[in-house]
């Protein structure tokens, strides 16, 4: 499959207070593929993900420079622009964190939460969307009898799938994953990996991962970041087209 570019960053720098965290990152991310970002802890991988949905704006003392263009609704948009609201962007760019983070509410309400935020209140529509999202992450059969239980009572793997369902319910075009399996046992990790592969047809996935074997198994393309600088890319399929500007 020859894929077009979904996200393009150009000379991207990131600063936390006066400290520069990312240096001149210029990368292309192909659409409908899994791109893995690897590198040692503290090298700025998670920060890079937070730029793609502008979550960094929620943290005091952060600033960026450079360009990030993303193809949304069929056209290339500058996502760092103020003209694009962060809320709208984040509905199109879902995110799953390292630790499963169900909110202290029922399973149903957790999944339906993004709909509620987007003021979608039609009960039938919500119920339908929740069921679909849960089916998509293969959690429906496990929880359909107890949708009103607290989401935090699920096992770690189930919680992470719940978070995945929650991120998917608004049908995002891009899915950001920050070490999505690092807090899970091998079996639960395998289930998540399987899911991610199945999501490629629906969205573009960008995943931070520590695990070389995981990257080999599911990623189409791999970028490495070290001390805030892009080091190398390795393509495991023909779709990868990393470039490096000097």
């Amino acid at each position, binding site marked *: 499959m020859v894929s077009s570019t979904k996200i393009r960053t150009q000379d991207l720098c990131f600063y936390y207070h006066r400290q520069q965290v990312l240096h001149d990152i210029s990368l292309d991310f192909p659409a409908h593929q899994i791109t893995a970002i690897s590198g040692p802890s503290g090298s700025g991988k998670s920060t890079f993900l937070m730029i793609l949905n502008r979550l960094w704006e929620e943290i005091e003392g952060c600033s960026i420079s450079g360009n990030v263009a993303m193809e949304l609704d069929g056209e290339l948009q500058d996502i760092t622009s103020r003209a694009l609201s962060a809320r709208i962007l984040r509905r199109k760019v879902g995110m799953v964190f390292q630790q499963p983070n169900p909110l202290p509410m029922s399973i149903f309400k957790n999944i339906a*939460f993004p709909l509620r935020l987007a003021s979608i209140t039609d009960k039938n529509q919500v119920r339908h969307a929740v069921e679909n999202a849960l089916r998509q992450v293969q959690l429906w059969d496990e929880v359909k009898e107890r949708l009103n239980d607290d989401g935090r009572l699920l096992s770690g793997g189930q919680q992470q799938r719940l978070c995945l369902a929650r991120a998917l319910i608004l049908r995002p075009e891009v899915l950001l994953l920050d070490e999505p399996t690092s807090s899970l046992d091998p079996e639960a990790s395998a289930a998540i990996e399987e899911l991610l592969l199945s999501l490629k047809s629906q969205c573009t996935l960008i995943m931070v991962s520590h695990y070389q074997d995981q990257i080999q198994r599911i990623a189409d393309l791999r970028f490495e970041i070290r001390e805030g600088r892009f080091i190398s890319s390795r393509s495991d399929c023909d779709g990868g087209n990393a470039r490096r500007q000097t």
Partner: protein
Amino acid sequence: MIRRLIEGSLILFSWAAGLLLTLAFLTLVGFLLQKGGTSLGVNLIFGDTAPLDALLLRQQVFDGLFPAIIGTLLLIAGSMLIAIPLGIAAGIYMAEYCRGRVKTFFSLLFDILAGVPSIIVGLAGLSLTIFLHRSFSAQISTSLLISCLSLALLVLPYLIRTTQTALESIDPLIRMTAPALGASRLQNIIRVLLPNSISEIGSGIILATGRCAEDTAVIMLTGAVASAGLPRSIFSQYEALPFYIYYISSQYSGPDELRRGFGAAILLILLCAGLLLTALWMQRRLKTILLYR
């Protein structure tokens, strides 16, 4: 060996501290009961008036504590009505919106406000009354409203601080969850951050309520009197339990009146215990309603 000795004595010390506190409380209650227990009864609250008549406001109570109990309850309700919305709003502002130097400035200001002795707050209320009396109408005098305003000012720093700390101590992961799903700042505050801090904010409210119930210095300068009956409006003077206790302790005329003073103290403790239990129950209910409904 020495380490184990230190560890052992530390545990012993902790136990002793707990025991001491419990004993002190029990002694206090025991003392009050011994001194004023015999005065407890319908007569202490309603005097010679029939309780039902008093409760239905058909007849004034002159020689009972009913007006003082109602006065204290009104005082608490009034000051909390002013202080809770203001305190929570200011706490949200401090935690979520205020940044940089302005934040440092406000923090300092609230800390100073928290340290102001209640008698000074009372004086401020009194000065306000005198100012209003001179510049607007000679009819304005110390009243329930002035007391409520002063008490609200007294407890405001607690409420602001507890709200602020509760919001600021929320796990960053939970804090980021809703924004990552497309929530605006306000949506995050209303749907996630506040419901998650209800317990802490509730504790702040409980502390503040207790403070309003027991404070004497503020109310004796701003409108509490020894005998006023039920307050006719928020602009009239009123009776209150702590002031009654203070008044009796300083000028009781005989053992019988002293006993009634101790009775009032027991009533005040019971009132506070009742409020505390209600607040705890509401705190739990509110969390369920806000998050799970």
